[in-house]
């Protein structure tokens, strides 16, 4: 489903060139779940961005659902994401100008689907927000916002879900509820999951664990 070959990423900083990811290779089977863990600054988010095709590696390659990402241009990568990928972010990233329903409709609208509104309403009902359809992000709590984000991530039935510290901005109880929901939806949709977290309890719910330190894979229990 997803594989990476010797991914490296270097950035030019004020103190010269900095290697933040060093020849990371991995592969994930369809329907599997992978947790990427590591200390803050170890390169988890960078790796996730590369796997999802949000950024280009300095060297190495990524294949997503058979598509060689590094050989596609930014527009083509966007089309791949639109079709196959869902995202959940640490800071939710709901569009403040849109209400819950409209936020969830977005991926469907991007695909040009006509049943966007009904689908969005039904998925929002699934995450327990059926009565909050017309609330704006600032009228929702953090946990509720993340549930809207989950609905948005699953609404178009993606094959792959990327989640970057999905509970990082939430208190423990809310976080637990959100991660329960995440795994439930994941099971229900049979989605392949790549999850980044420094929370080992959350990571433990994934089938497989990859540990990064200073941009290098130090543990892979595949």
């Amino acid at each position: 489903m997803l594989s990476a070959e010797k991914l490296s990423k270097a950035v030019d900083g004020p103190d010269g060139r900095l290697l933040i990811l060093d020849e990371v290779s991995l592969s994930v089977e369809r329907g599997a779940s992978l947790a990427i863990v590591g200390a803050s600054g170890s390169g988890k988010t960078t790796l996730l961005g590369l796997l999802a095709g949000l950024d280009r590696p300095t060297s190495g390659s990524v294949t997503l659902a058979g598509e060689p990402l590094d050989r596609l241009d930014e527009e083509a990568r966007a089309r791949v994401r639109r079709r196959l990928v869902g995202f959940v972010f640490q800071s939710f990233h709901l569009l403040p100008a849109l209400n819950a329903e409209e936020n969830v409709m977005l991926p469907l609208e991007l695909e040009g689907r006509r049943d966007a509104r009904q689908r969005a309403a039904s998925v929002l009902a699934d995450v327990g927000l059926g009565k909050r359809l017309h609330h704006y992000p600032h009228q929702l709590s953090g946990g509720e916002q993340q549930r809207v984000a989950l609905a948005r991530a699953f609404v178009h039935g993606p094959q792959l879900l990327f989640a970057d510290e999905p509970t990082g901005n939430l208190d423990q109880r809310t976080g637990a509820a959100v991660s329960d929901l995440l795994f439930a939806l994941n099971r229900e949709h049979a989605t392949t999951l790549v999850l980044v977290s420094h929370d080992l309890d959350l990571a433990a719910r994934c089938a497989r664990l990859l540990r990064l330190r200073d941009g290098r894979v130090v543990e892979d229990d595949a």
Partner: protein
Amino acid sequence: MNPLVFAARSLRREFRHGELATLAAALVLAVAALTAVGTLASRVEGAILASATELLGGDLGVVARRTPLPESFSSKAAELGLSSSRSVEFSSVVFAGDKSQFSEVRSVDDSYPLRGALLVKDAAGIQRSAPAPASGQAYADRAVLNTLGRSVGDHLQIGGRDLQIMGEIVSAPGGPVFQFAPTVLMNTVDAEASGLLGTGSRASFRILVAGPLDAVGDYASWARANLPASARLITVAEAQANLRNSFERGENFLRLAALLAALLAGIAVALAAQRFARRKTEEVAVLRCLGASRNEIVLGLGFELLLLAVPACILGALLGLGMQEIAFVFARELLGATSGTVPLAPAGSAFVVGLAVLFGFALPPLMRLRDVEPMRVFRRDLQTRLRRFDALYLLPFAVGGLLVLLESGSTQLAGVLAAGLGAVAVATWIVTVIMLKGLRAISRRLPGALRFGLANLNRRRGLTLIQVGALALSLTALDLLAVIGPSLLDRWRADLPPDTPNYFVLNLQSDQRAEFDQRLQALGADNLSLLPLAAGKLVAINGKNVRPSDFEPDSRAGNFVEGEVRVSWSADLPPSNRVIDGRWPGAESKGAEVSVDKSWIDLFHLGLGDTITLRFAEQEITATVTSVREVDWDSFRVNFFMMLDQVHGESLPHSLISSFHLPADKALSDLSRAMPNLSLIDVNSILDRVRDIIGRVSAAVTWVLGFSLAAGILVLLAALAATAEERRFEIALLRTLGANSGQLNAAVLGEFAVLGLLAGLVAAAGAAGTGIALARNVFRMAEYAPPLLQLGLVALASAIIVMLAGLAGTRRIAGTPPMLVLRHGT
């Protein structure tokens, strides 16, 4: 994604966020200002035409000397559906009892006047508009009545015909402003019966036509083809020469105000769009993450702008139409002659310009959103890579330049404004760069909070440059509107001070001078000027004979060659004359010298050192051009195209021409009785008319300037609020680190005071320079000095306003808990 639906939805939400509201408000203001001014200008233009046809007495005239125009000139007019009127002008002696007076007589037919009104005073001294004199009737002016010792109701005789005086002429349409007004008006039937118009008379015959514009045009081309040798066309343009200047100045003022309003709006749009783009960045990153393509994003933004712009432009156009209606109230009487319909074309073009301003100024920052990297969803601080050179950034300048060119209506106004604003932009850039360097050097010695504030200026160098530049440009526009505009208007009003000459006297002989002086003194006349006048013909230029046939028929040059040339001389350069090339011939000149008006130099392609040969009766003079003068023809003084050196001038047969100002309550009847050979020309009514125009047009202009100014201040405050908003994050951070409000204020005040003072000073200097250039090249006013003290005070005031606006904007932010800001980022 359907970009249109998405755009509509975004628009609805984001309107409440403020940036879009600022954008819309700026657009509404720009379109309103352009609509108001464009409509007003076009109505004023209509009024100029109408008032000129009034002066001319018709829409087009044909004048022939000595022989009447053929009958076909009347029948052709009738055939084209035009009304026509014939008149004859001649000199004749008017008798009454034992008294007589040599007068300029005009005889007219029953359809006189075709345009405008004949104003007379009846026996009771009440002014009314009167019909053409019937057979057996006449009107006469005050001077004639005084000399003859007759009043309204009495009789006078011309060419043996006895005519009853039906009224005293106040004003009679039918000729260019400064042509000698008729002193007696009678019916052509009587003139023909008297035999005064027989062959050999020095009469000039005129036909005036009026009617639909295209029919007048057809008539003009027919007349040109069938013109008898001695005849020429008189167009409206000639008749209005004098008033035109006043109107043109007024129009230039209006356009200046509208342009500045539009440019201010453009700056506001650019700043608002930049702020909008910044806020939109994260949304775009999320959308990119979810798989939206670049084109969808750009299309969505474009639609959003369009959905915003169309209603804003419509609203602006409506508002502008309403405003010009208010301004029109000031000028209603002046423009009363025009039809009541409001031209809609200016509103239409303002609408288009509004769209151009929006897209021109808003597109560059918004197009940068194309390049937002999706990785930004993880790293807020990820800067969108700035391309070193982005051609899009030339767009606002192109649109601004085009705007100046199209809306200014004159290349001079466009050039001066573009140069002025361009210089301000460049100067701001240089001064800011130097200041930033200087600040870096001294920052170590500044107290902490202040250092932080000023360090910010250096940290966001690009942004600082944009902000100071935008601030300086808008302050320049404000200075021009608030200080330079009104002071130019004052200078214009001062063009015709109360003691402007209101009488001209011709035909004064040298030996009458002493008596003339003494009588005028007794009457309390002032501002007296006396110049010799010799009438001759232009025979040769550089030894080469000139004939009327050398020039286009009806051309100005041809008319000069054909007609009389009046020359004068004086030891000193007369007032309202300026030597722009060469030197004024002193009293000690050896050869004959002549000083020529600039327009003549251009007309006959002359240069210093060329010679002009003039014939005066039997005498011929060949004079060398030794200076070029620029003459203020609006000064209501006696002025001449050619002035000879004194030595050679004195040798010519000449009379004197005088102008002076006579207080309103004094009359010249005693003077004209004692010196009957004098021709008196009363220009009080034309003076009143020009003063009236200046008064009304400047009232309308003041209104538009004020409106543009208010719009500009609003725009500036909105821009400053946006600038303050950008400091949210830093202020929240300082707050978190425990800074108290005093320290916060010091940081913000220091930063904004530097921004404001810098921009204010550059703007004041720029406005002063632009004002001088405007006065000289656009409004043609000599000796204009911009009010520097006022500009300095405005610069100081703008620094304070910028500081307070910055403080107010930050206050609001400082009131919110820092965590909220930090959490939600920019």
